Structures are given as C-alpha cells and as structure tokens.
C-alpha cells in the first residue's frame, strides 16, 4: 500500500536519474562512427592530459574541503556557543550568499581579487605587499571562490552536530578533572566529528563536479573534469568522449565514498546510527 504511494517518486527517479545515467554509459561506449567500442576509454589512458585533469579535479576538491574545514569548524563552533537566537542571526550571514546566484558571487570575487581589484589596492595601501599579487586566474582564486560557495554545506551539518552535543557532557568532563582544552579535544571534538565528516563529504563530492567557479576564477589554468567535458563538447562535439569522462568521474567518486565509508563507518554518520 505505502509502496504504491511511493510509486510516483520512484518513477520520477527512474525517469530523471536512472535513464539519463544509463544513456550516459551507453554514449560513452559509442565510437565516432557510431559503432560500439571502447575507444573513448582507450584515449583517456593514452593521453596524459586526461590524467592531469582528474588529478587537478581531486586536488582542487580536496584543498577546497580543507579550506572549508579550517574556516568552517571555528565558525560553527562559534555559532554553537551563541544563544539560539543570536546564532540564527549570524547563521544568516553564512546563508545569505547561498541565496544569491552562483554566477554573481563568482564574478564578485573576480572584481575583488583581480590585479587592480579591491583587495590588492587595499593590501598595497596598508603596506601588506608592494606590487599587485596575482590572486585570480589561478589556483588561489579558484580555491577562494569555491571555498566561499561551499562553506555553508560544511557549516550547516557541523553546526547541527555541535548543537546536539549536550552541554552537560562538557560539564561532566570538567567535573571529572578535564581542563577546558582537554574538554574540547576529548569530548567536544570527537562528538562533532560525524557532522564534520558528513559536511566534508558533501563539499568534496560537490566540488568534483563544479564548473562555473573554476572556469571563471581559474582563467583556463585550472582545468577540472567539468571544464574539460565542456571543452570536448564545444570543440569536437564528441558526446562519446565527454560521456566517458563523466562515467570515470562518477565511478571514481563512488570508489572514494565507498572507501571513506569503510574507513569512517559512514552509514552510521549519514543515517544516524551510532
């Protein structure tokens, strides 16, 4: 009965996810002449440039996740200490950019970071550095922009996990003789880990398929898989090669999630089992 009620959503999932995904697999196995072949995958092994694209993709995703953790953990911690209402107001400042267009935010960073941009002029004026520093059209710019866009995906689950830690646990630890630093590392931090892992995985996986920000802020120097796929489609109109790139990324992502799951007991974290 209840399964019957779920039927429409199952149909939608089949229609918009399963069928296109199957189509993607199918396309990746079609050669230029329309024949069935593995030529698309062969090319990916033959040309070193493909490997470099994947390496860049994972590097950018990993570094973005790292930057998000370094900024997001203290931020979430700060928010979790505030009274609920105050935290709500501060949380808005994290979420507000979330509601503006991705493109707008990315171009805003371009304006801020470019050679004659706000940041460079300000830094030179206060004497931080003397000649304009290249902050955009490279890895730095890409990381800044991506970390900014991804931050809420880390902060939200992390903040939720921190809020769920009972204050009495910290008191108990202090009562049992733990100094404030020990209370943090022995009780608070381990208990916030599930939230951090969940948030990090979301950020990492989202980064893998990111297109707009690396394309604009990377200035062609940071080529990720999504960028490469576009290039292949625009320049060669080669659906087979593009699909193969997507399939490999998908499989690599699944392998990473599987390994992370084995390592971190992910199903506990994502599905709330302890």
């Amino acid at each position, binding site marked *: 009965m209840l399964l019957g009620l779920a039927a429409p959503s199952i149909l939608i999932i089949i229609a918009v996810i399963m069928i296109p995904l199957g189509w993607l697999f199918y396309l990746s196995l079609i050669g230029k002449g329309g024949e069935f072949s593995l030529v698309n995958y062969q090319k990916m092994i033959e040309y070193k440039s493909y490997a470099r694209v994947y390496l860049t993709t994972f590097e950018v995703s990993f570094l973005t996740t790292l930057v998000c953790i370094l900024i997001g953990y203290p931020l979430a911690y700060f928010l979790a200490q505030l009274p609920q209402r105050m935290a709500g107001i501060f949380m808005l400042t994290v979420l507000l950019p979330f509601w503006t267009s991705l493109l707008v935010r990315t171009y805003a960073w371009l304006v801020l970071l470019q050679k004659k941009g706000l940041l460079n002029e300000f830094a030179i004026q206060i004497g931080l550095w003397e000649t304009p520093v290249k902050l955009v059209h490279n890895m730095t710019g890409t990381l800044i922009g991506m970390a900014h866009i991804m931050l809420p995906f880390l902060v939200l689950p992390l903040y939720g996990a921190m809020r769920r830690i*009972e204050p*009495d*646990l910290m*008191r*108990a*630890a*202090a*009562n*049992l*003789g*733990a*100094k*404030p630093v*020990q209370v943090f590392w*022995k*009780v608070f931090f*381990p*208990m916030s880990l599930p939230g951090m892992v969940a948030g990090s995985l979301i950020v990492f996986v989202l980064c893998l398929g990111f297109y707009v920000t690396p394309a604009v802020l990377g200035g062609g120097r940071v080529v990720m898989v999504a960028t490469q796929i576009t290039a292949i489609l625009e320049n060669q109109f080669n659906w087979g090669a593009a699909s193969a790139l997507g399939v490999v990324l998908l499989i690599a992502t699944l392998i990473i999630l599987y390994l992370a799951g084995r390592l971190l007991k992910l199903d506990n974290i994502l599905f709330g089992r*302890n």
Partner: protein
Amino acid sequence: MIDSSKALPIVIRGLTKKYGSLYALDSVDLDVSSGEFLTLLGPSGSGKTTLLMAIAGFNRPDSGSIRFGDTEMILAPPHRREVGMVFQNYALFPHMTVAENIAFPLKLRRIGSKESRQRVDEALSTVQLSDLGGRRIDQLSGGQMQRVALARAFVFRPRILLMDEPLSALDKKLREQMQIELKQLHRKLGVTTVYVTHDQREALTMSDRIAVINHGRFEQIETPQAIYNAPANPFVADFIGESAMLPMKRNSSGDLFYQDLLIASDYSELSDEEWLLVIRPERLFAVQDSTPASDQTIIFTGVITEFVYQGETAFALVSISDQHNLSIRFGTDSSGSQNLMRTGDTLRLGLKRSETIIIPKPST
C-alpha cells in the same frame, strides 16, 4: 566515625546568586558535615540546583563563600574541585565504552593503566555491572546508565559527591530500589554527599538531614523525622507529607481554638495571635459515637465527601466545616471498619493531643 581521608565537610556562608533581579540564592548558609548525606529538597525554581551547581563550580555566585574543609573554593574552576557528580541525564560520553567512561577521570589524573583497570573493575563490581565494561552507552538501560554514572563519579575517590535528581528518569520500582542501593553505597564510601531532589518521599527515605529550600532561602534544615513531625512553617508542612492545616485563634488566657474546639493550652509566651494546626492523615483515627473528647484526645466531627481505596491503605476526605476538610488514612485489613464507610456518612475523627503539630501562621 569521621574519616577525613574519605570525606570533607562543606561550609557555605552568605551565598548569593542573582539572575537579573531574581534571587536564585539569597544569602544562603549551609553546613554539611563530613560523611553526611544531605538532601536539598524544594520545588522547581527554588534554587536547589543553582546551589548544587555553585558547589560543583558551574556557576559563579555573586557573593559568599564555599569551603571544602579549610579550603575556599568559590573561585576554583570545576576541574580543580575534585567533587564527584551524578547528572540528572547521566551525561555519559556516548563515544566511549562503559569502561572508558569510568576510566576517564583516572586517565586525566595520569593513573597507570594497570591500577586504572583495577579501579574500573572495582567500581563496576560496586555498582553490580562487572560484565558490562565493554558495552557502548546506547546499549544500556536507564538503570544501568545510572550505575555507570555513579561509578564514574566515585572512581577517582572524591571526598564530596553531588547528585542532581539522579533517579528522576527511572520508573517507580527501579527508583525505589536505587534509593536503597544509593544509601548503601553512601554508607560504604563514607563520602560527604549533597543530593538534590524535588521528591519529598525520596528525601525522607535517603537523607541524614534534609534542607528544604524555597525562593532561594532555606525554610528548614533538619533530620527527616524532625522535618516530618515538627515542620517549621506552613511551606514545609505542606511540601513534606500530606497534611491538612486548620487556622486557630488564641483567647486571652493563651488557649488555642479551632472554631469552638479547644486544641491546646498555654500558648501565651509568643506574640503571634494566629496559629495553624497541622494534621497528618495517618495520625487521625475513627472513634465510636460514644467516645467523648478528653485530655488526651481531640475529636472532630464531619461528613465523608470522598472515599478512596488505594491498595495497602485507603483514605477518606471528611468535611468538618464549610471551609475545611481533613483526610484520614487507614490500613486496609479485611476486618477493618473502613469497609462500612460510605460517602455521606458522618464520621468522628480522633487526634491525640500529643500528636498535634502547632505552628505560627505567618502574617501575610
């Protein structure tokens, strides 16, 4: 048999804690002697938890002094106070096993792993959980969590133990069993214990002394017997046990009357004009129609308005005047006279003059 290696006295003087303009604690004085089991009893918002938290160091009072033995502790952070504490919701660390939870305070004190293991085992056997050291916290029942929290609180041999309504989450049967176990444990450890509860029966069962607290002040600090038999004021009389209170007037020769009924003589030494007679339901007894009032016995006459059977006892609500009801409690043996009682019957109630509790009525 005070053993200062096991227990420390607590001396509290003039402790005041304000939240905004509200006094959570209003210049409170309290002495808990070495090895004593003292219960802070009061309704919610009375300040009992605030006081406990001040002793543990979790809030900073505005003024006053808290000494453990001869050491002033008012400014000491919680981790330096060396007091064990059992929290209301147990506060067990969910990312550690039972044994790791109990070993936590030992690890912080850099106690070697061999001794630590030995003491954890000892603590586990004291709370009768010897086989559960490897369990995760979410695999425990409420009663088991309670015991683990207890073991963790005393394993590092604190000389003061604090408990914040530790049994409130347990069902009635388990709670009564744990009350007795806690008492036995206290006797065994000999540690000074401050126990917070809002359950008057629990306080009567467990305590050496009870400190009744209300609106941030102590109403009475006494043994359970003294609190029950000689409440200091209407609040204590009402909060502890069941009681009816009848207003009394004093005549010129110092005799106290409830309406026309002489209750007691010779109350001329105090200036109070108005007094209250506190009557516990189990102190009343039904008397025959023919029995007259005497030097020993006061007799009230009323009509039964309610009769309630409760298993081991039964009680009747008896209206003795337009404004006042008395309740009377009987044992329920099969031959008992209560079998004959019906709503609407007239009943004569006897009260021994030696059992009267008489307190001044506070001027309002």
